[in-house]
């Protein structure tokens, strides 16, 4: 019986739910494992975790990013107690959507949330919370990570594959191809795509063909496959939560390179300028990796 632990760091909680979202497969899993620590599902306190022997947990899953001192401490504690440390979900791996906060500093975030927020009546800064770190970190910034389960949250096929491998002691799993390979709209991709204008989702009626050919930004070409194109099956373009294809380091750079070359030469300035938020569009899930120390300040 393998002992597993799951911790919820700075994240939305979707990762915890995704583990439950395996439905009946979870029952099969429970035959093989014993859950020793999972604040979201079982009653276990930090003291209980501290009392455990070092390396007594077989697999520790960490979901969410490192935003507070508390997150950081628990990540280090779990690392000490676990044989295998697994970054679970996009937040733990590359910062995910909450990593976009690295475009702002702590003061700007606190101002926006507590002081200058119109719907907040009493303008009080919290003083009894764990220390808020200056920038959002990912799990591998803090501790050594043995395996990564991508996705926001990890889709069922990815999760099943990963758990299967991890329980057998393997730390390498998942597909090494881009999402386009398993896209249900693959056959509608024309030989040559030319973008004359970028459309946002609501600006165009979807005709059921390749999103990029329609001028809608889709992260498919630079995103790792494995999710069975769940979003595209629901007529939503890929936003890239699975991260880069394993042999690519920078997903955002890869997709910018790809998309830029599809733009029509004639009015390229206008088309390029129509993308207002480059970081938020192409680094939606990896801003914390792009800007680990926040937005930079260049002299002039």
């Amino acid at each position: 019986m393998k002992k597993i632990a799951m911790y919820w760091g700075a994240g939305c909680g979707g990762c915890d739910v995704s583990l439950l979202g395996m439905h009946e497969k979870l029952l099969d899993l429970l035959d093989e494992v014993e859950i020793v620590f999972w604040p979201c599902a079982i009653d276990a306190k930090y003291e209980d975790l501290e009392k455990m022997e070092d390396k007594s947990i077989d697999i520790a899953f960490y979901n969410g990013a490192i935003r507070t001192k508390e997150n950081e401490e628990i990540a280090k504690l779990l690392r000490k107690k676990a044989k295998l440390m697994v970054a679970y979900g996009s937040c733990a791996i590359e910062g995910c959507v909450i990593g976009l906060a690295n475009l702002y500093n702590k003061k700007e975030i606190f101002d926006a949330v507590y002081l200058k927020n119109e719907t907040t009546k009493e303008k009080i800064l919290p003083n009894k919370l764990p220390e808020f770190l200056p920038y959002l970190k990912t799990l591998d910034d803090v501790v050594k990570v043995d395996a990564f389960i991508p996705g926001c949250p990890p889709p069922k096929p990815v999760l099943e594959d990963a758990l299967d491998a991890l329980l057998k002691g393997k730390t390498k799993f998942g597909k090494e191809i881009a999402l386009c390979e398993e896209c249900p709209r693959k056959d509608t991709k024309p030989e040559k795509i030319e973008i004359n204008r970028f459309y946002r989702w609501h600006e165009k009626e979807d005709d059921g063909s390749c999103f990029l050919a329609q001028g809608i930004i889709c992260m498919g070409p630079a995103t790792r496959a494995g999710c069975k194109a769940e979003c595209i099956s629901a007529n939503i373009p890929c936003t890239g939560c699975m991260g880069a294809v394993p042999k690519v380091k920078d997903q955002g750079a890869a997709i910018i390179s790809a998309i830029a070359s599809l733009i029509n030469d004639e009015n390229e300035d206008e088309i390029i300028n129509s993308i207002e938020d480059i970081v938020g569009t192409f680094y939606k899930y990896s801003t914390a990796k792009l800007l680990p120390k926040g937005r930079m300040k260049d002299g002039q």
Partner: protein
Amino acid sequence: MKEQIEIEPKNMNFEPKIVAFLCNWCAYAGADMAGVSRLKYPANVVPIKVMCSGRVDIEFILNAFEKGADGVFIGGCHPGDCHYVNGNLRTRKRVKMVKKLLEQMGINPKRLRLEWISATEGNKFAKVIKEFVEEVKELGPSPWRRK
């Protein structure tokens, strides 16, 4: 002499590191031409020969900055002269996008420069590099570099 006086004293000792991606057919040959013609240009540039400016993936540019470059220069053939038909036009669009990205990241987009230099334009190569080095000197060390 006048030029020397105009440079701000705080930047006097700063020698920027500049990575230059030069295409095999035009810009690199242009750099060669500058050498053969014995033209002088600052030694801050580290040239990297690529087959086409279109080979310069955005990852190369960001990687250069991450590894400590203060400026990145890309030299390609003039539009219409690309050995591979339209590689340089792709680079032009990519560079425009990266400039927007750099701006959002807090890096001055002037640290990235794209120029068209043909094989005979040794003069232009020397002039443009000189200009670019001066410009980056003015900007000071890249904030990415200090980390």
